């Protein structure tokens, strides 16, 4: 079982989707159990894989049994999966988050998309399969295919929402296609110079033929980065994200917001580390006036500040959260490009923690919307009294977002700030702190609103368009929503307290890399 576990991670959701296609269309009640079963199986396989990785270190699964040439030393002719602790962690996050959101979705999917439940769950499962596959694969092109699966499913998952959702999904399609195409082009540029597609082989060829200086490789790296940045909504390229996430159905937002951008960041890290190599990524290129990584870190500082400021100016909870996501993306990109081990560790750790933070907040907001029927900040009056448990979980998520101990948000900030100090990137440190403060302001504004009783307030228009489903509000929070919310909230603290274990796992994967301090 342990040997085959990596493939089960991807196959379980896939077969789940098929099963829904076979039986779920007729028996709608079976959709959710099938989904849950598939995701649980996937989670189990992930845990098993992760245990194997912890026991044996990085390991490789050969699809189709095509071994590398020359007794395993040569290039890879098939497709392989490669799991190390970092990808294992990301996989764990994907499996856990998707399972939680699936539980959460029990009442929501039926409410949001009453007549297309089976389709929704099929797309849901396939999105998870795509994300997991992206994380685990070691083949640059296979990654593209899986990227497209996850993109297509996410377009559809967004577009099943209100009519604004369709519009934003369309924008997402345009942006996403440009992003994915850039990625594909980048792979093409790599392929034309190296002739291989396996990530490690590409790296080996670049090193062996000393291609790092060649324009093609340089352009390839830019293209891949641009592509991945578009997909992760890195600041100047973020325009698609806020509308897409905030107008989509609750479950979609709760699934995509924690996972999609994070997986893209993981892929960026993967590209930097595995394909191009740190030496390439962080070295000052002679022809360039600007230090490569300096530039990116500066960009990410801008992203952080801009994301926070934009988040502050929103009056809609979901929108606000989406802008916070944009800021958080800046955290991780900047962390990864700080050119030191701490930064990379922090970035990976932040992937994990941010996934759960976002999850917690989105779930909480989902509950709030389900209960109050709208998501404007003004509408949150007196929520602490009305739904104390939800608000408590929301508070934990918010505190984590702000970065208060002992939640995991604090520790990721800890590593990132530490790395920023070490790298001497003061503006990045400043941006991090600034965004923490902004988050504090943002969330305490909400707390205030929710904590203090209602003051005079004119009729607040709902942000949903009038022809969407009439939002019927629930009398009490169903346990299918409360339990995942609380699990995620508790996970935030657990992740925080045991952050060092996680960081050690990350470090064990990074330790073979030869990090060096960035000059300047």
């Amino acid at each position: 079982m342990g040997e085959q576990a990596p493939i089960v991670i991807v196959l379980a959701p896939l077969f789940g989707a098929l099963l829904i296609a076979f039986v779920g269309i007729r028996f709608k009640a079976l959709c959710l159990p099938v989904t849950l079963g598939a995701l649980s199986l996937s989670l189990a396989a992930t845990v098993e894989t992760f245990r194997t990785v912890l026991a044996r270190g990085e390991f490789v699964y050969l699809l189709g049994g095509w071994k590398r040439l020359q007794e395993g030393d040569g290039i890879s002719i098939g497709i392989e999966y490669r799991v190390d602790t970092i990808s294992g962690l990301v996989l764990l996050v994907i499996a856990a988050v998707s399972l939680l959101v699936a539980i959460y979705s029990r009442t929501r999917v039926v409410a949001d998309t009453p007549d297309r439940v089976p389709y929704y769950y099929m797309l849901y499962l396939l999105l998870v399969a795509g994300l997991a596959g992206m994380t685990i694969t070691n083949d640059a092109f296979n990654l593209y295919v899986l990227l497209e699966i996850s993109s297509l499913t996410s377009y559809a998952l967004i577009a099943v929402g209100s009519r604004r959702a369709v519009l934003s999904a369309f924008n997402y399609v345009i942006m996403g296609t440009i992003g994915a195409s850039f990625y594909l082009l980048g792979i093409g540029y790599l392929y034309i110079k190296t002739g291989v597609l396996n990530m490690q082989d590409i790296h080996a060829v670049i090193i062996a033929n000393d291609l790092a200086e060649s324009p093609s490789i340089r352009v390839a790296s830019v293209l891949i980065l641009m592509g991945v940045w578009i997909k992760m909504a890195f600041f100047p390229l973020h325009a698609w994200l806020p509308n897409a996430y905030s107008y989509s159905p609750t479950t979609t937002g709760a699934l995509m917001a924690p996972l999609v951008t994070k997986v893209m960041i993981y892929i960026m890290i993967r590209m930097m580390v595995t394909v191009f190599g740190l030496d390439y990524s962080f070295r000052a290129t002679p022809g360039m006036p600007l230090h490569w990584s300096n530039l990116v870190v500066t960009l990410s500082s801008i992203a952080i500040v801009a994301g926070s400021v934009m988040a502050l100016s929103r009056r809609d909870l979901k929108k606000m959260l989406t802008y916070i996501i944009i800021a958080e993306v800046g955290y991780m990109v900047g962390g990864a490009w700080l050119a030191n081990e701490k930064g990379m560790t922090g970035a990976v750790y932040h992937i994990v923690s941010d996934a759960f933070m976002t999850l917690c907040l989105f779930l909480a907001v989902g509950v709030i919307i389900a209960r109050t029927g709208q998501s404007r900040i003004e509408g949150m009056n007196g929520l602490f009294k009305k739904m104390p448990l939800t608000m408590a979980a929301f508070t934990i998520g918010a505190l984590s977002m702000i970065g208060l101990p002992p939640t995991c948000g604090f520790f990721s900030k800890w590593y990132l700030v530490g790395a920023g100090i070490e790298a001497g990137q003061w503006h990045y440190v400043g941006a991090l702190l600034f965004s923490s403060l902004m988050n504090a302001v943002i969330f305490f504004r909400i707390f205030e609103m929710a904590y203090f009783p209602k003051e005079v307030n004119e009729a607040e228009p709902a942000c949903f368009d009038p022809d969407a489903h009439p939002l019927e509000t629930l009398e009490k929070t169903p346990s299918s929503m409360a339990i995942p919310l609380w699990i995620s909230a508790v996970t935030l603290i657990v992740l925080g307290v045991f952050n060092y274990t996680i960081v050690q796992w990350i470090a064990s994967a990074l330790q073979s890399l030869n990090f060096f301090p960035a000059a300047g």
Partner: protein
Amino acid sequence: MEFFEQLIIPKFNYWIYVILMMIGMRAMIAKNNLVKKLIGMAIFQTAIILFYVSIGVKEGANIPILDHHMMPGEIHGGDPVVVAEFANPLPHVLMLTAIVVGVATLGLALAMSQKIYRAYGTLEEDDILSQIKLEPND
């Protein structure tokens, strides 16, 4: 002139692909009509496919299908395969996938544009935006 011989002629395909890609991308970003955007998207994707297929071209090579008499099953041993005789199959494989992805994306995007039309009664981006401005927004 030397520039011409060195950079343009031997890499003609690559130049055209860049041009096509720019055309497509500009349409994707700047066109007002959603369907036009999608046509631009399709052109953009074919440009990339063109790039890949161009990678795999070999001077004087034939299509990457072995002749029957080269198959060991038919006549044992067969002629040795000369690599230069066959085009590089790998880009073709990759592009098959890319085409499929392209058509899938196109279909989905068209479905969305129909739904947008149903909701807003137009496919022009600026009209839709002006309608949205009238809606309650955050």
